């Protein structure tokens, strides 16, 4: 029989905030296992694993894009608008640039300002070219740089759970959300952090 004090200690240790990945490892199917360095529209560095804790809407874009990328922002906004204020506060939005050569911190900040994207919920991010390719692979986004500086790319909104696992994705973009995708978002926000 283990003494009660030991069991208490064990419980206390388990309750401590995790200090290393061994203590609280991400699931093997988590996008957050990608260890590349990112920075946001304020220039603040972060890793994908820092996004842990609440569901995220993730997409890729680039700031000089004239046609579809504004629609990607519209689509994420459309999802937000379809949520209650309480739900909205529990959802993060992460947009990763396909164009790290031109999308510096100032370019990201400019889009965030012009599109009135609340930094409490919206992160516009850049990383290096190799990591862009890896993020795209994880999200199922295909892209190619064109000679004129534009990109060909598939456009998708991807829903990640609080642990960074892909729950749903949609390529139906526009201010009115894809109903099935919106239902997945609402479900994810209702359940909170899923069991590990």
């Amino acid at each position, binding site marked *: 029989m283990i003494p009660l004090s030991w069991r208490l200690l064990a419980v206390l240790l388990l309750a401590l905030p995790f200090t290393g990945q061994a203590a609280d490892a991400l699931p*093997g*199917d988590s996008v957050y296992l990608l260890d590349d360095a990112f920075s946001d529209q304020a220039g603040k560095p972060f890793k994908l694993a820092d996004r842990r804790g609440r569901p995220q809407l993730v997409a890729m874009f680039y700031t000089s*894009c004239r046609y579809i990328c504004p629609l990607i922002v519209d689509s994420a906004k459309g999802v937000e608008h379809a949520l209650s204020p309480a739900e909205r506060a529990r959802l993060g939005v992460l947009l990763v640039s396909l164009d790290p050569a031109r999308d510096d911190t100032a370019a990201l900040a400019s889009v965030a300002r012009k599109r009135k994207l609340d930094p409490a919920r919206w992160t516009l991010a850049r990383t290096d070219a190799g990591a862009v390719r890896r993020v795209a*692979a994880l999200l199922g986004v295909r892209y190619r740089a064109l*000679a004129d500086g534009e990109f060909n*790319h598939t*456009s998708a909104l991807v829903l990640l759970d609080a642990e960074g696992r892909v729950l749903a994705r949609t390529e139906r973009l526009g201010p009115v959300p894809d109903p099935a995708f919106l239902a997945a978002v609402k479900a994810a926000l209702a359940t909170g952090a899923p069991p590990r």
Partner: protein
Amino acid sequence: MRRFLPLLLCLAPAVAGADAGWAPLPGGEFRSVLRYEDTGGVVRVAPFELQRRPVTNAEYLAFVKRHPQWQRGKAPTVFAEPRYLEKWAGPLETGPQSRPAQPVVQVSWFAAQAYCEAQGARLPTWSEWEYAAAADATRADARSDPAWRERILAWYSVPSGAPLPDVGRTPADVHGVQDLHGLVWEWVEDHSAMLVSGDNRNQGDPDQMRFCGAGALSMDDRENYAVLMRVAMLSALEGRDTTRNLGFRCARSPQAPKGKQR
């Protein structure tokens, strides 16, 4: 006796100072089978170095010993699907079904990238791979030769169930590179940039809304089936996928260039 010529050609670049396992390729303007709308199909390939042979089981084993996070069972499923290195006897044992000198297969794009990065290298781009694969023993671009095409196509008609040969059994090309055809399919860094995946074509009519910026690529040079098959296969794969005939080799920038250009 025919084997001697490629062997000699293969020695020349090695003497010039490149590492034994790497071949220097001069690059230049190259006509891709992929006719991109923005380039008209002509791509500019910068000088680069390519591994002469695909990465072997023995080499990959050394890598996972040094990088345990890439051992079978430890590599996260988000980076490598469950069939990753499935034919190996164990996480640190290639076993009787996988000879050391066979090309490593059942590796994901993420794993191949990590391997190359650990060598201070990277995966070749599609343009680099296609440029390299256009060569034969005497010409940098042998693609217009019907005999070249037929030889390559012959391999594609071999059933894929047979055990893979060891690397280095096919003649070296004019650059000193072997096995680009006739052994395994190979990952490229930008396989997902080819944008001719099934999901683009299954839409019924092309859905312009899926693309940002104008244009998509279309395929040129329809007689080059061998390379087109590569495109079709690579563009259909996800980064975590593995197959029993898909391996890789690494590329890198030219090492210690001689100051002749300026």
